[in-house]
């Protein structure tokens, strides 16, 4: 090193590659970070390590055969992935869904929201250094919901439970009792969780005013889900589109004020409480008996390799726990989709990761990424 470089006042920048094999990146995700001291001056996400061209696979098989593959997108929330795909195909082919099936669908979607948000909060605390205490509480509660999924769909995580026009099967005997138990106990668990976390001094000082995302940037960057609402934008597809039967339930859309990591944490806690309210209403309103798949949907399931939706295109979207999950389908009137595209919420939500991280320390970048809630199965597809 020359004499001048040693004594120069120019900052010495350091390039660090965080990931892809690092537990805090929540999968095989890499951040190329340029540091000045410990402050981030540049951050470029690198992804694609889990890319398997899901869309190409789906274009080479029948419509129904893609259903189990959608489970593997966001592998924490297979039920809502099924929901979004079924919604898009139903829109494309004009298939109706019977009432009881609608209730069970919403029931599954809201339970999935509980699973996702509980896990996210647990993992966020892991990233914060509260190593494995909160996440084990989260896993304990999640297990109860997964038991119910297993009893109903036959699988804990890869549920493959939805069909076009309805569901694979009805709830098992005693299934609703199981849900009642979960719903009744969940508020108590959330209270316990919140006593541990919400007013925790360390959590507050680490999360408040870190990774602030402004309202304007959030909207222009197509951010959706709890992350958007934490920035104070009131946009929930359950309210806006009123898909399925969401217009029958009363629930609020919790909003954040600052748009920092703490708001993103707290909005999710509040959303879980709203989900519990929806679940209680479902348990009250749900018809005891009824069809679980419509005639048109059953016909599609009977001979999936022969079934042809009419030519045209459709975009179906739902509010998945992570944001707007959409499927864009183009049919040319053959049994295989001509174009099958997934609009994954967490892929688009990390567009502005650099904007949120600039000026913060490396340890902050880890929790900012944690608060975005990414799942690499969905980001890379």
């Amino acid at each position, binding site marked *: 090193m020359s004499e001048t470089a040693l004594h120069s006042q120019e900052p010495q920048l350091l390039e660090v590659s965080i990931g892809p094999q690092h537990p805090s990146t929540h999968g095989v995700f890499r951040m190329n970070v340029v540091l000045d001291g410990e402050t981030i001056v540049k951050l470029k996400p690198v*992804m*694609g390590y889990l*890319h398997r*061209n899901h*869309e*190409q696979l789906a274009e080479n098989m029948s419509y129904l055969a893609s259903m189990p593959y959608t489970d593997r997108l966001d592998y924490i929330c297979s039920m809502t992935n099924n929901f979004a795909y079924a919604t898009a195909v139903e829109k494309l082919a004009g298939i109706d869904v019977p009432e009881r099936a609608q209730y069970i669908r919403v029931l599954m979607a809201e339970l999935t929201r509980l699973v996702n948000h509980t896990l996210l909060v647990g993992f966020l605390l892991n990233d914060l250094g509260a190593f494995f205490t909160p996440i084990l509480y989260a896993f304990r509660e999640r297990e109860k919901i997964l038991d119910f999924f297993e009893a109903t769909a036959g699988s804990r995580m890869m549920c493959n439970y939805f069909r076009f026009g309805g569901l694979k099967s009805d709830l098992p005997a005693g299934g609703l009792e199981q849900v009642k138990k979960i719903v009744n106990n969940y508020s108590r668990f959330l209270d316990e969780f919140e006593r541990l976390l919400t007013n925790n001094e360390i959590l507050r000082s680490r999360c408040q005013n870190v990774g602030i995302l402004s309202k304007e*940037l959030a*909207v*222009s*960057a*197509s*951010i959706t889900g709890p992350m958007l609402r934490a920035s104070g*934008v009131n*946009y929930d597809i359950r309210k*806006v589109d009123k898909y399925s039967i969401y217009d029958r339930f009363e629930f609020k859309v919790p909003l954040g004020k600052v748009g920092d990591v703490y708001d993103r944490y707290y909005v999710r806690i509040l959303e879980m409480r709203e989900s519990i309210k929806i679940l209680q209403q479902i348990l009250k309103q749900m018809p005891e008996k009824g069809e679980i798949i419509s005639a048109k949907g059953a016909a599609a399931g009977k001979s999936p390799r022969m079934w042809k939706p009419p*030519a*045209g*295109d459709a*975009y179906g*979207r739902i509010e998945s726990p992570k944001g*707007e999950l*959409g499927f*864009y389908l*183009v*049919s*040319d*009137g*053959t049994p295989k989709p*001509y*174009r099958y*595209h997934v*609009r994954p919420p967490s*892929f*688009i939500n*990390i*567009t*502005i990761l650099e904007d949120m991280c600039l000026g913060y320390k490396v340890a902050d970048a880890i929790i900012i990424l944690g608060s975005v809630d990414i799942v690499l199965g969905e980001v*890379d*597809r």
Partner: protein
Amino acid sequence: MNIEEIKTDLLKHVPGLELTVEGESFVVPKEKLLETARFLKENEKYRMDYLSCVTGVDYLAARQGQPGQAAVGGQSELASDYLESVNHLYSMEKKQGPIVLKVRVPRNNPRMPSLTPLYRGAEYQEREAYDLFGIVYEGHPDLRRILMWDEFEGHPMRKDYVEEDQDVR
């Protein structure tokens, strides 16, 4: 918002726009895409501030059973084979939408303007469409491959793409 009303407004406010309605969506010439999107974003009545979904579609006549789309009038080189970029616009402020804007470009020269300067949310989605379809978005700040690695050749979502292990039969 019905589709005829939107069409009338677009034709009135975007000078020189040639518009085709196909089902629920609009086919816009690439030169007018930015102008149309800007009008929809800034107009009081629409406020389409949220670009939800950007993706490409490869229309190759030889691979289609019964084409869902009719050939576009006036753009003769796009009669049957073309790449299409599909944009779904919604409004977060007014809670309405979608308005679907489709842009078609020839397969041998797939260049079209990028929406990223207007909607930040298009950044990664356009990179993905570039990566998998080879659509070149002009004006994109950072157009690189995103899912495939940099040295990869070809665009795997195109309908005439041949997988590596299939070409030597």
